[in-house]
């Protein structure tokens, strides 16, 4: 355990230094992450205004709160491993990663967390400005606030594991961008990014609850906003834990199979 901790400390130092070199790229990611919820927020506020101030239990101020929290949760849980694996497998640079005596997921986690720490001040700054502009309405529920952090942490891990496993598709096909695109569109609708899930038709809601999508983004957001009952919160965390175990098993299985077919083309 101590060994792993030392490795992480060192990995964080390296990642932090290298991420600081790609500030412009981080800013581009940041703008994308701010823009999408902002567009949804603007559009849904217009919808609630044109239908008499409220849509499905959401007023304009509720939408503002929803999409601002969504922006923060999305920032805390997003990954870009699909793009790095596509590149590393296609270019063959994964070979050097495989030679290290440590599972590559650890350095990916360190990269991911460092990039978020670097961009966090920017996200919080933008969130503060948007809060002044859109005047969101928050109904704080103490127990839900307490449950939010573990739920967010679980959401981050599940999303990371699922997307990391999906990124391994690069081992089998060179046309990963089509696979990723399908995943992103599914995530857009099923994880509550385009609209709160309660405003979507029943089949979509059902799919989002069965698949990991709801548990990686929408669930922590709803919890933070105090829109869930204690039973719903506990069920959600159980679902998150189930997905955590399932995705760990999947990851192990897919990783082993993937490394076997990897042929380091281009290296």
């Amino acid at each position, binding site marked *: 355990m101590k060994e792993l901790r030392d490795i992480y400390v060192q990995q964080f130092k390296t990642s932090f230094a290298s991420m600081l070199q790609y500030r*412009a*790229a981080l*800013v*581009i990611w940041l*703008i*994308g992450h701010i*823009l*999408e919820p*902002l*567009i949804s927020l*603007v*559009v*849904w506020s*217009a*919808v609630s205004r*044109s*239908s008499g101030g409220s*849509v*499905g239990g959401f007023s304009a101020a509720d939408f503002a709160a929803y999409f601002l929290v969504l922006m923060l949760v999305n920032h805390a849980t997003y990954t870009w491993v699909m793009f790095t694996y596509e590149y590393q497998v296609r270019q063959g640079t994964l070979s050097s990663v495989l030679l290290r005596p440590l599972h590559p997921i650890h350095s990916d986690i360190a990269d991911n967390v460092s990039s978020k720490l670097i961009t966090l001040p920017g996200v919080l700054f933008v969130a503060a400005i948007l809060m002044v*502009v859109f005047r969101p309405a928050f109904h704080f529920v103490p127990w839900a606030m307490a449950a939010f952090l573990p739920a967010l942490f679980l959401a981050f891990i599940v999303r990371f594991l699922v997307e990391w496993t999906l990124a391994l598709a690069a081992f089998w096909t060179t*046309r990963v*961008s*089509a696979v990723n*695109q*399908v995943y992103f*569109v599914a995530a*857009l*609708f099923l994880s509550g990014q*385009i*609209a709160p899930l309660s*405003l*979507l*038709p029943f089949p979509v809601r059902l799919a989002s609850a069965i698949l990991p999508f709801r548990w990686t983004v929408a669930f922590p957001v709803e919890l933070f906003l105090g829109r869930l009952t204690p039973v719903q919160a506990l069920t959600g965390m159980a679902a998150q834990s189930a997905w955590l175990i399932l995705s760990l098993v999947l990851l192990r299985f897919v990783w082993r199979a993937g490394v076997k077919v990897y042929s380091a083309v281009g290296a």
Partner: protein
Amino acid sequence: MRVLRLLFVFVRVGVMSELAYRANFFVQLFESLLELGTALAGMAVIFSHTATLGGWRPDEILALVGVYFLVGGAIRLLIQPSMEQLIESVHEGTLDFTLTKPEDAQLLVSLQRVEIWKLTDIVLGFGVLAVALARLGTRVGVRQATAFAAALLAGGVIVYSFWLILATLSFWFIRVENILMIFQSMYEAGRWPVSLYPGWLRFFMTFLIPVAFATTVPAQALAGRLTWPTLLGAGALAGVLFVASRLFWRAGIRHYSGASA
């Protein structure tokens, strides 16, 4: 005419280089259809809760989606690849070869790369527009059609001049491609009418990154809600930006030293 002849040559080169990778066509088609499906599904969700959005009816928003795909396709087909190539050739010093050719250099760099499969976006855009037009029905007369063509032309010129100005910055600065990426991601905001956005954001989208003129204004023309001042303003802005980008380009060329060639 010269423009069309040159464009035709570059399109042919684009076709020849891409025909070697025919499977890319299907990937591109798949991704374009997916993007269109996303846009339409998003619309469906919104209009299941309301009849109009900021005064726009569903068919009018559909026309806006068509324009969004059309203009976005044109950017990704020609403007973005050419401008990225320009930035790269300034870095590499290979712009020398373009400058020595007996043709206007701005024209050459603006047409130099055609990503032919992005035509799928343009075709889809026209398809969506046709459906929207059929549903809008008789409300679209000759006057609206003319205003639409004029607004679309002005929007195209504005977007092109804007990209050229950004790309020309590469004569002085090194990491310009990041600015282009930021513009490209901001274009997404143009999928909805700019009138929905709060005042400061609308100003930003109209004048700082002119997505409003590229998508909202032409769609307004189709819906017959475009006022003359807006259309004239778009035309004037297009003219001013076109001249400004030309002058800026010339200043850039004078500054260019071809150091790394």
